[in-house]
């Protein structure tokens, strides 16, 4: 049982004291309340030390109360759900939460790697570029492993993420980032005007700084105004409020990325629900009301646990009723910091002193000080005495040179505010400098986007409300919504007077980038070594590259660089702002596209039948295809495939070839069109005939092949390879719509309309006779080789029958409407039983095509010409076609090109492998005699040995030559004979018979 919450106030705050929650940090039990973050709960339990820094492993506490936190990073959850580098400041507390500190060993309090601090004089920015070079081998063996182990922060789970993610689209007129006063006012104005509004808030509750700093709006306390406003927005059906949702990026055309943490506030997502959801929001206008981030001042010891941003201090005290320190010192250079005094005193805590870097403070502040018994020191903090357990004493350099000391257990720091210029700058916009607030503000934004309120550099509550309201109204108006927006909420503006102070010179490490341990002297060193450009500075020192993306460090870093290089801050400039605004889980970007659902799956019409037969499937693009059909007792795939080939060659078999691309080419100019896309002629193809066609790319290289049949005067049925189906359709549409718009031709994909089966083997006709209506003439005269026409089948349905052969056998392809595909497979089995019909898969198909010397994917490599493939004669010289001219370039007709030949091993028992190279016999392999490679191989049952195809220089002139197949990567070397690529039935008698 967790103990009492030592640092929790008895009243106040937005936590639910009736809902206690138990949690563990580094194995120790604590309790907090519903409404806490992990950070606020740790504060409430008096925990000061929460993490270790990246390089020096210095002890660190909580610095902020938001997503800009550089220090308080933990491993959240355990096991497969362990999530490294989670900001304790944004992790909502839930019952049973487990978190562990990271980047320390063996424990947070006693971290061995903190020895690095001893080497700090050497471990300056970029020290590693100057050493670890000798001897060269030591880098991978010694230095790098040590560096890698020391670097990194938390540990990833190391096993598959068990949670689900999804992605969704949303559309609106006005998208609003942030629900502080500016964002809410924008939502009110846009919503009342009738616009469709989406408001994204990264916190789990609306209000932004109102939740911490309060104020009076329209005469109401901020909390009451919030309730009223939320009710009004909730009543608008076209206003969508999305909490726990961070707008992280803006992309082209008004597309925004947002991450919704749907169930991160629970131990795990409920069944059927996702952990997080990625939103693609399409918005016509966007109001960035993302507020501003308070910035630290760089001074020695500023990383001591207990040093905290002043606004964060107010948030912990005001919103969470959690006490970071009981005796607080404030170091500020601006009026806003003083609000911390009021919040602290109101909670009954002590103010030790206010150290104000400005020359003077107002009489009101002076009287506040005297009334509450604290001193106001004019000067700067020059050192912090403290350690793992927090701040003890603060050294102050007073204006004029004297020194003072303040005893306090916490130091609140306010260096002013930086508007959140990320979103407005992601299209490589560069923000502009504003002297009055000493900060960068947006200067332009991606189309449709505007910043309002603090995000625009106007920090007063009144200004936030009025600017937000005006921006919301304007956005609604721009998108055609002219409803009555009413009047803007009204509030006073607080004073904001600031004297810039970036860095207090002094002894001791003064941190600019807390997480990456970049100090002020590192920046000075970078300048000294010529890394003056802010981008060089960032890359050399790693400033701003930590998980907080430089939110607390960048501006201070470049201000120091400006000072040491004698330039102004705007001259020094900013680095490029990069999305995402806060780090986003990779799983969310993937959504459900992982595991089996990574990509869609296409199933052939006979898929489920094949699965029933026990087929082994192979992925071919998106398709699952039956690769072979193993039978009981077969010891390996080769035995199954050999049986299938033998069955086809000796009897009859069938194979689902529906994956081929199938395109209806209609229109009076269909023939003329095909003449332009194929190298051979199709306009003269007779109706009822099929022809093999070859397409080139415009650069003269072979693109695709297939048979195309003429079914009517104005109707061709074109087929493509499986791999290129979609691309060929796109290419043909390009030809139709862009290149040859004068032709009257229409294209439709019918790939999914037809279930197509190849039926092959000497008994094909016998089998077909069983299935085709007896009135159809299937004789060689009635249905000769390369005939194609529609036929009736027994049982009344119609099919398309094509007398074409990939296997070299007597063969047909038959097409039926796809929903009959499964019935077709069953009927072929039924009708073919008497002939021993055998279903075969893609492997047997491949074996038979190699035996027949047909080209396929491995030969259609995107680098071969028609002539390389032995098809040069098909190129018509009587017409223009795509690729004709470029195919004639000298290097593409050179005599020494690698061309397709057959190969067979001289040792008949030798197995061949694709990818082996061809070297002349007797020569030592080298780049000068690497003459080609093996493209396709198979065990040929017909030849009773392995055979293959290869691309070989001068191949066709070398038939009969014995060459060397060189396969060093598989440790094989053997002799093969170059031969005619048509191993089977070279004169084609079988397929024509």
């Amino acid at each position, binding site marked *: 049982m967790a103990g009492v919450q030592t640092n929790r106030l008895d009243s106040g705050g937005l936590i639910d004291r009736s809902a206690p929650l138990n949690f563990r940090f580094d194995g120790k039990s604590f309790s907090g309340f519903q409404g806490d973050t992990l950070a606020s709960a740790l504060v409430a339990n008096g925990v000061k030390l929460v993490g270790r820094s990246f390089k020096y492993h210095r002890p660190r506490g909580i610095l902020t109360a938001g997503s800009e936190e550089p220090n308080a990073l933990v491993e959240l959850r355990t096991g497969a759900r362990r999530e490294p580098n989670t900001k304790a400041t944004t992790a909502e507390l839930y019952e049973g939460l487990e978190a562990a500190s990271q980047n320390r060993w063996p424990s947070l309090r006693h971290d061995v790697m903190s020895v690095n601090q001893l080497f700090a004089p050497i471990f300056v920015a970029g020290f590693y570029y100057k050493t670890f070079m000798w001897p060269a081998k030591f880098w991978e063996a010694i230095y790098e492993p040590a560096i890698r182990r020391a670097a990194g922060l938390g540990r990833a789970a190391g096993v598959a993420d068990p949670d689900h993610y999804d992605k969704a*689209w949303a559309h609106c007129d006005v998208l609003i980032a942030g629900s502080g006063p500016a964002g809410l006012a924008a939502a009110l104005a846009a919503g009342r005007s009738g616009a469709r509004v989406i408001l994204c808030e990264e916190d789990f509750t609306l209000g932004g700084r109102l939740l911490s700093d309060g104020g009076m709006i329209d005469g109401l306390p901020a909390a009451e105004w919030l309730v009223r406003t939320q009710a009004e927005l909730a009543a608008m059906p076209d206003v969508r409020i999305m909490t726990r949702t961070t707008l992280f990026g803006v992309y082209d055309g008004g597309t925004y990325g947002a991450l919704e943490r749907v169930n991160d506030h629970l131990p795990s997502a409920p069944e059927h629900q996702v952990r997080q959801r990625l939103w693609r929001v399409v918005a016509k206008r966007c109001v960035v009301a993302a507020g501003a981030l308070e910035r630290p001042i760089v001074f020695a010891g500023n990383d001591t646990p207990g040093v905290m941003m002043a606004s964060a201090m107010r948030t912990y005290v005001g919103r969470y009723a959690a006490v970071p320190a009981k005796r607080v010192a404030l170091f500020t250079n601006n009026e806003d910091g003083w609000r911390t005094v009021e919040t602290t005193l109101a909670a009954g805590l002590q103010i030790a002193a206010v150290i104000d870097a400005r020359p003077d403070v107002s009489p009101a502040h002076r009287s506040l000080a005297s009334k509450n018994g604290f001193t106001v020191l004019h000067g700067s903090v020059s050192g912090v005495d403290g350690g793992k357990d927090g701040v003890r004493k603060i050294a102050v350099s007073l204006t004029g040179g004297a020194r003072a000391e303040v005893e306090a257990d916490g130091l609140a720091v306010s260096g002013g505010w930086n508007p959140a210029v990320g979103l407005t700058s992601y299209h490589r916009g560069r923000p502009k400098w504003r002297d009055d607030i000493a900060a960068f503000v947006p200067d332009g934004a991606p189309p449709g986007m505007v910043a309002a309120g603090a995000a625009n550099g106007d920090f007063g509550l009144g200004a936030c409300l009025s600017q937000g309201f005006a921006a919301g109204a304007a956005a609604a108006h721009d998108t055609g919504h002219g409803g009555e927006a009413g009047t803007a909420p009204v509030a006073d503006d607080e004073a904001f007077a600031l004297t810039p102070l970036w860095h207090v010179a002094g002894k001791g490490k003064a941190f600019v980038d807390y997480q990456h341990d970049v100090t002020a002297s590192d920046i000075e060193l970078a300048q000294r070594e010529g890394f003056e450009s802010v981008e060089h500075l960032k890359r050399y020192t790693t400033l701003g590259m930590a998980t907080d993306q430089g939110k607390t460090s960048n501006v201070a870093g470049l201000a120091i660089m400006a000072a040491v290089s004698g330039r102004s801050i705007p001259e020094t400039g900013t680095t490029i702002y990069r999305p995402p605004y806060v780090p986003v889980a990779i799983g969310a970007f993937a959504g459900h596209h992982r595991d089996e659902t990574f990509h869609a799956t296409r*199933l052939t019409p006979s898929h489920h039948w094949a699965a029933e037969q026990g087929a082994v499937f192979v992925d071919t693009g998106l398709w699952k295809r039956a690769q072979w059909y193993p039978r009981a007792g077969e010891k390996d795939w080769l035995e199954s495939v050999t049986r299938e080939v033998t069955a086809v060659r000796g009897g009859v078999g069938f194979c689902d070839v529906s994956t081929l691309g199938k395109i209806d080419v209609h229109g009076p100019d269909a023939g003329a069109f095909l003449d332009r896309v194929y190298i051979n002629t199709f306009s003269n193809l007779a109706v009822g005939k099929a022809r093999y066609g070859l397409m080139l790319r415009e650069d003269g290289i072979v693109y695709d092949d297939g048979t195309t049949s003429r079914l009517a005067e104005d109707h061709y049925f074109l087929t493509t390879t499986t791999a290129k189906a979609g691309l060929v359709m796109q290419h043909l549409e390009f030809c139709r719509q862009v290149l040859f718009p004068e032709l*009257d031709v229409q294209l*439709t994909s019918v790939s999914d309309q037809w279930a197509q089966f190849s039926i092959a083997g000497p008994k094909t006709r016998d089998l077909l006779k069983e299935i085709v209506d007896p009135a159809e003439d299937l004789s060689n005269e009635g249905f000769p080789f390369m005939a194609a026409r529609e036929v009736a089948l027994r049982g009344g349905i119609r099919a398309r029958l094509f007398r074409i052969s990939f296997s070299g056998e007597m063969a047909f392809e038959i097409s039926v409407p796809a*929903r009959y595909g499964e019935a077709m497979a069953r009927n072929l089995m*039924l009708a073919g039983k008497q002939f021993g019909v055998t279903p075969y898969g893609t492997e047997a198909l491949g074996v038979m095509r190699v035996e027949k010397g047909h080209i396929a994917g491995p030969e259609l490599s995107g680098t071969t010409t028609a002539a390389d493939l032995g098809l040069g004669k098909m190129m018509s010289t009587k017409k223009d076609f795509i690729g004709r001219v470029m195919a004639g370039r000298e290097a593409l007709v050179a005599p020494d090109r690698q061309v397709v030949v057959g190969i067979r091993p001289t040792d008949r028992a030798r197995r061949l492998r694709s990818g082996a190279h061809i070297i002349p016999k007797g020569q030592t392999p080298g780049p000068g005699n690497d003459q080609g490679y093996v493209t396709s191989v198979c065990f040929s049952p017909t030849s009773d040995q392995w055979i293959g195809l290869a691309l070989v220089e001068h191949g066709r002139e070398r038939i009969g030559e014995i060459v060397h197949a060189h396969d060093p990567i598989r440790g094989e070397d053997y002799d093969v004979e170059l031969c005619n690529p048509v191993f089977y039935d070279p004169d084609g008698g079988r397929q024509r018979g």
Partner: protein
Amino acid sequence: MAEFSWDIRSPLERALVSGAYGAPGDAGVALTEIRNFDLVQVMARRGKAAEMSKAAKGRFDVAAPETPKVARTADATLIWSGPDQFFVLSKGGKHGIGALGQAFAQSASLSDQSHARVLISVSGTKARAMLAKLSSIDLHPDVFAIGAAAATSMDHTSVTLWRSADRDGLAVFSVLVFATFAESLWHTMLDSAAEYGLAINHSEDL
């Protein structure tokens, strides 16, 4: 001589299990596969868009949609599928490929797609929320009204989507997806809708 049966099988025959799925309680999404329909792609020939429209008007007594919309008659739905082309969706062969040839002989090319697509109807209180996970287009009632259609993609898969007449005051979306992708998209739909609870069915009624 063997007797053949030419059983027609939907590509979703095995994947579709009628009944409830996902989160218990009232189903937020109803998915219904519509089976056994005729679908013909009608594409105007070059320069013949007007003639095709005229032929369509003559045949169906409604104008074929020239923008992304659907036009309904008592026994057919004409669905825009691209510039100068549309689908004719019907039942029972009256407007199948065989029946339409004559009407469009001079003006259009026809292609039978009856087996190339699967038709899924999506409805329920959470239909839009579920479709927002699959479709990048805006389905807000003011933007995608009854009769609106789109040639678009869902989860990288090409579909034709349109909004049919409301049922019980709720929007009904119809999705035509390529047959060989159907089982895959179906599973994605189930995943997307599981958190809302599903009622799954199939029907012969268009």
